[in-house]
């Protein structure tokens, strides 16, 4: 019933080699009072067909949900290669001589992420966008001894929640910068009064509402703060928008699930962190470097380990050990499969689709909540009953956001990607 290959003769032979009569003797060091005397109350063993018969939910085919997790085209090549046992059944590449596949793939991931964000360096991945933001804040604390972390309120509310959890015991205060109710962009007045010499500032762009922030203006004020970072929650935007690194931040962090990783009911996701030369040695997580073998040939290995927990223990730059290796490999495969025109074309489809659908929605009398320029998401108002009725019909019109933003009554965040067919948007419009 388990995946144990031995038969009784094997076990007997092993016991004899060990020099004991009974397997029970192997457990003699476990005190009697700590032994479990009854069988675990869990189901099974089940055969594969019975496992397959366990009911599953059908996903809704018409889906305009985004809000940090996006449905995108994934080239078939990505699955074919990521599902190779050499990638998915291996461990963290501690032994480089037999881990060149994972190491070089991650090196290529790092290279492409650095190029796309316009930053000096990328790490090998973090858990998700939320913990990437939290790690960036911890890095800012190490770098500049800041007293406050400022984050725009239009940054993904789940990211802000996790940030709050991580900052709770650091003594650093978390403050939010409001957004302008008309444009959906950061409120200029608050930005101008920032005075962030003792603070780290984080801005998500495009923001949670899909709105493009006035980055040139933000960068001007952000430079006066001790540390600043740009948060990217839709990695596909890197295919079309100005590179975040060009605004001169200390780091660019976020979520790259969109690069070749399906929504998977919420995860695994793919956190990333790109930073400058200055902060390289403060960066959390694994990094792969190029080196040579004893014959002088190109080779790769994990490097800068002196930042990490297995060497530095409580003084490490982070506690992270296992990251999202396979998701990063998927991202490398995805970016390789898409190429420069492919990624730009996907980003263009997203932008074009969102604007065309919003126009049609406006024609049926619904106005967007914000007037600012947007990428591929926008906020409209749709009452909960109507939304639920649509959901019951297998149409997900978007992600409700009133829970996070009570000031936007019945707010619904609509995301459009290249996965939304003509039938999808007809279906949405007819039922709105």
């Amino acid at each position, binding site marked *: 019933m*388990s*995946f144990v*290959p031995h038969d009784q003769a094997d076990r007997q032979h*092993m016991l004899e*080699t*060990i020099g004991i009569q009974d397997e029970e003797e*192997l*457990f003699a060091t*476990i005190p009697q009072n*700590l*032994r479990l005397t009854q*069988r675990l109350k869990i189901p*099974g063993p*089940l055969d594969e067909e019975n496992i397959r018969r366990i009911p599953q939910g059908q*996903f809704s085919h018409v889906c305009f949900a985004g809000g940090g997790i996006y449905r995108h085209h994934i080239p078939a090549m990505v699955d074919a290669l990521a*599902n190779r*046992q*050499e990638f998915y*059944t291996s*461990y963290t590449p501690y*032994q480089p*001589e*037999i881990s*060149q*596949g*994972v190491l070089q*793939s991650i*090196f290529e991931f*790092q290279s*492409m992420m650095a190029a*796309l964000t316009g930053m000096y360096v*990328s790490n090998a991945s973090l858990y998700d966008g939320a*913990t990437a933001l939290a790690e960036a804040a*911890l890095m800012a604390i190490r770098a500049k001894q800041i007293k406050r972390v400022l984050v725009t309120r239009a940054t*993904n509310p789940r990211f802000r929640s*996790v940030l709050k959890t991580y900052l*709770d*015991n650091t003594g650093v205060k978390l403050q939010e910068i409001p957004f302008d109710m008309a444009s959906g962009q950061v409120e200029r007045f608050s930005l101008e009064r920032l005075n962030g010499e003792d603070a780290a500032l984080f801005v998500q762009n495009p923001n949670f509402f899909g709105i*493009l922030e006035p980055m040139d203006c933000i960068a001007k004020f952000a430079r006066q703060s001790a540390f600043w970072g740009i948060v990217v929650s839709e990695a596909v935007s890197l295919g*079309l*928008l*100005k590179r975040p690194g060009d605004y001169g931040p200390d780091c660019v962090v976020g979520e790259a699930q969109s690069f070749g990783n399906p929504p*998977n009911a919420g*995860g*695994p996701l793919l956190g990333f962190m790109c930073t400058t030369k200055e902060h390289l040695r403060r960066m959390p997580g694994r990094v792969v470097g190029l080196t040579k*073998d004893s014959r002088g040939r190109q080779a790769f290995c994990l*490097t800068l380990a002196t930042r990490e927990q297995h060497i530095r*223990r409580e003084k490490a730059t982070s*506690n992270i*050990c*296992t990251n999202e*290796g396979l*998701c990063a490999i998927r991202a490398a*495969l995805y970016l390789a*499969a*898409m*190429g420069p025109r492919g990624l730009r*074309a*996907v980003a263009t489809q997203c932008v074009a689709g969102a604007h065309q659908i919003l126009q049609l929605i406006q024609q049926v009398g619904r106005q967007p909540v914000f007037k600012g320029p947007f990428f591929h998401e926008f906020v409209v108002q749709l009452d909960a009953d109507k939304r639920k009725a649509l*959901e019951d019909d297998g149409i997900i019109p978007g992600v409700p956001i009133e829970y996070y933003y009570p000031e936007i009554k019945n707010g619904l965040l609509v995301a459009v990607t290249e996965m939304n067919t003509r039938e999808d948007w007809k279906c949405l419009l007819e039922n709105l």
Partner: protein
Amino acid sequence: MPARESIDHSLEILEPLLITHSRPGRNKHILPDPFKPCVPDELLPFMNPEEVRLPDVAEVETVRHFTRLARMNFGVDQGMYPLGSCTMKYNPKICENIAERIRNIHSSDKHPMHMVLRALAALQRYLEEICGMDACCLWPAAGAHGELTGMLVVKKAFQTRGEDRSVVLIPDTAHGTNPASCAIAGFTTRNIPSGPRGFLEAATVKAHLDKDVAALMITNPNTLGIFEQEIHEIAELLHANGSYLYMDGANLNAILGISRPGDMGVDCLHVNLHKTFGTPHGGGGPGGGPVLVQSELERFLPIPRIVHVPRELFTLSYSFPDSIGMVQSTLGNVSVLLKAIVYIIRLGPKGLLEASRTAVLNANYLKARLKDHFDLPYATPTLHEFVLTDKRQKEQGISTMDMAKALMDFGFHPPTVYFPLVVSGAMMIEPTETEPLSELDRFADAMLTIAEEAAQYPQALHDKPELTPVTRVDEVYAARSLCLTWDMLESKDDGAVSK
């Protein structure tokens, strides 16, 4: 006609970087294009005027590139991977199969999510039962993330009590993540020595207890493979002091169905799904690090929590005012969680028990075959893993590193090396239950051959491995001549490695 390029044979590059295959126009992938591809004018100022900097490579070249890379990597499906404390067991294929089902579900898609939440609620129950704990949170994405979550829970419990306790005791055999996680949770750590028999003694803990001690973090069995025999007394001492016992569940694979952390007096622990519960490690994740607590700590667990309205559906609730807050953007690594459920029900209670009993049998068999030829630092009986050292081979100038590298030429992944830190030149060997006897024997024979070579021709071992895609990799050079991206390589004029 371009001049024929001369080929430099002095440097052999096994697989060139993908960027070197790049030529404008090579990538001809066709994309879905449901929309007229026009960008509104108001967006033009936000756009990158330059082309995206990605390699432009034909599909067949990309596939071959990564296929060749894959072939330079060792996986569990290929051979034994006895990395101590990492539990590299076989990853059942049915788990991958079932996890594929949730691929297209968006976490905001309520109806299928009810089914997902139902499955996750079941996983919580199974883990609670296996560990003897009262409550579970599945969201931490890896073991270290689970540790951090657990220690934040402990911190919150003291804050709620109005106590400011700042110290966590950590035995010297602990994983490096333990102290690192404590530091982020706002604790300072105090390293305490394990006893001469390789386990932590209650008397040592007692000597370090004071009103500033919030918790002790223990791994059981510990990283020497030894069961912490005094754990129950230690738990009682901690509880009498108002402190908590945290357990790192990295080595849970030794005790499934045999002994439960909850019965040992553990207040909080994390388990590693990618170790104990057979989910693949993916070359370094995604993993899963669920946290389990006793009822006293339940209200501090992260939000959201899965709640079950009787005779209705499973849903998520954020209304837990004492919670430490969120630790991950959604529900953790959901597909990993699903694989763990399939693993558990595929094995059932008897299968889990058989897995642990066999993991212990296999480790002890290997130890019996090797112990006369290598230094065994502790005589105390061990469970699912054991530690040898290079003390004897050191006399011939052969280190643990040399032996680890030599094992690769026999087709094995090396054990965990130079850990735990309390043992000099440690080799920590964990075969797991899924290795057949023939593979265990092959491994033992390889180790014995290496020991013999170390005694007779030690010089040859310094040049190992020789049969791997690359020979011994220069890690010092990597750190000294830092090159972490294509761009850094381009800007570097270095004769040793070139594109």
